């Protein structure tokens, strides 16, 4: 019974991926066929031959994601240390959740004007900055779980053994936090890589990312090309999943949990 249920659940988890692969290879797949009539690589070829080259789009999305991840993690690591020592930690934590509460769409429409004023709208950098608002908040929340009393003692120990500020960060804190920093880098990368609303609004159509391309194909009615894009979108997280499940399991909530433990 349990075994059967486990199998069914596994099937349901794999099915979407199979479906995407089939869609990306299908040429005709009309009702009521259960499987596509003919499979071929045409969509993949079309996709990589299409406007501005999908290669550029993928590279741009990757670049944005990496940039946002590095900035968010670096700034977030430093800020989370201050947060952990701050007397009004609870209030600051509430502030950090604000962007997530008001949602990217609301933030996007309300900030577009300011971003235009600063010549940031429609630019890669502007979109990255908007994504950074979310990625940074996420990083601070995630990484503040690192600063438990033990980490603090190790930090003090190192400085009492003669390590300067820079040495403490470089030789103690960063190596200690490395697994968590890896998770943070990856998760903040995904915030940018998966983002659609902010690119749509702040990018004002001038920054073509993989999600924008996917939506465009979807809205032009060609779900097969959209599915092909979707597979590209899933590739990095699935790859990471193969390497290390921890990378994906971290969530916005790890910190909240950590706090309840205290």
């Amino acid at each position, binding site marked *: 019974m349990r075994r059967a249920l486990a199998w069914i659940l596994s099937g349901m988890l794999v099915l979407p991926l199979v479906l995407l692969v089939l869609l990306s290879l299908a*040429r*005709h797949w*009309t*009702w*009521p066929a259960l499987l596509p009539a003919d499979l071929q690589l*045409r969509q993949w070829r*079309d*996709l990589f*031959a*299409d*406007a*501005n*080259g999908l290669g550029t789009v993928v590279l741009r999305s990757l670049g944005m994601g990496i940039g946002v991840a590095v900035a968010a993690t670096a700034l977030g690591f430093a800020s989370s240390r201050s947060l952990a020592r701050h007397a009004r930690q609870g209030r600051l934590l509430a502030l950090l959740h604000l962007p997530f509460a008001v949602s990217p769409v609301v933030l996007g429409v309300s900030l*577009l*004007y300011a971003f*235009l*004023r*600063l*010549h*940031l*709208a*429609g*630019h890669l*950098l*502007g979109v990255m*900055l908007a994504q950074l608002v979310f990625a940074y908040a996420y990083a601070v929340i995630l990484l503040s779980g690192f600063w438990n009393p033990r980490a603090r003692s190790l930090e003090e120990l190192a400085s009492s053994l003669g390590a300067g500020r820079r040495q403490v960060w470089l030789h103690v804190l960063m190596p200690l936090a490395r697994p968590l920093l890896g998770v943070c880098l990856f998760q903040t990368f995904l915030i940018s890589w998966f983002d659609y609303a902010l690119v749509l609004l702040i990018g*004002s*159509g*001038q920054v*073509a990312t993989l999600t*924008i*391309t996917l939506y*465009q*194909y*979807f*809205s*032009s*009615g*060609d*779900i*097969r*090309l959209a599915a092909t894009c979707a597979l590209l979108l899933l590739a990095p997280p699935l790859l990471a999943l193969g390497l290390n499940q921890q990378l994906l399991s971290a969530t916005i909530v790890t910190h909240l949990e950590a706090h309840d433990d205290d």
Partner: protein
Amino acid sequence: MRRLWLSLGALVAIVIAACGRTPSSTPADPRAQDWSQIQSAARGQTVTMAMWGGDPAINAYMRDYVAPQVKRADGITLRLVPAQGSMIVNMLMTEVEAGRQHSALDLVWINGETFYQLHQIHALYGPFTAKLPNQHYIDWNNPFIAYDFQQPVDGYEMPWGNVQLLLITDTARVPSPPTDPAALAAWIHAHPGRFTFDTGFTGMSFLKSLMYAFADRPGDLRGPFDAKTYRRLRDKVFAWIDSVRTDLWHHGETFPASTAQLHQLFANGEVDFTMSFNDGEVDNRVDSGLFPATARAFVLHTGTLQNSHYVGIVDRSVHKAAAMVVANFLISPAAQLKKLDPAVWGDGTVLDVARLPAPWRQRFAVAGTRTHAPLRRAIQPYARREPAPEVMIELTRDFRERILHE
């Protein structure tokens, strides 16, 4: 601590500086220059063109054909960004509000309400079309070209392509499609759940075509917006919808949001009809495998809309000369002929073939043959002009209120 402050400050400064780069001076207005001056001013510039990016065929035409051509012949780099319709209006409007002196866009692919709205906020540059050498081939007497939704384009838009609204069905399932509203209603009753239309641009255009079918006088929808006529025809259209409603897809409780969704429903076999505002699209869709080979396009004999789509130049563009050179290339016989081919795009030409030099005339005569839609010649008699843009705006709003109960 101070070092940290400094580096944070520097970071902010870099971000602002990196984005704040704007051309320091505005170049001369090309309208005061002759064509060769415009051409030399255009050389080396980059033109950013906003266009719908959802069709791989169109993207390929722009990227693989137009962009290399203008690069080679005129030294212009063409940058394509995906934005359309309301999005362009929005972007330009927000730019105006934010006090941006120089727009991020130079050339925009627009028509209808987009043109109307951009005109309202003075976001378009013009008149400029008279400066383009290739505009001599355009038949400015053709009302489908000289008027964009009843508005004279007056040199603020350059016609680029011309299309007609078609219904598409699968002849394997519907061997003889209905060609007027009454027959269509009868078919819907006989086949519940197999017909719908979208609530986007194409679906609303279909409803406007129905307004023509219910019009008493051919001139009813001509000229500026007339609220009384509009309301009379609108009520007839809504009455028609109410009469078939329960037999529509999902009992008429919901409608697909876009032609894309409708295409998808049709491709899946969930409904038997879709529609397209590009009479060349069906061949292209069959060719790409999305539609079955038995898909055929047809028109309502009570009339369907025909319109043109245009390119406009943004008033705050700093690359107007280059934008004009690109626009001129887009209406060159070579570019228009290429675009006519259903394998490339299948978009109708705006050129008057009779005015072209002899060799081009022959090429146009044999080009653009399509197998899944009737030839343009055959459906031209059913073509109707777009009513005033307010009709679209009002109809969209009324449809939302009366039919969707928003």
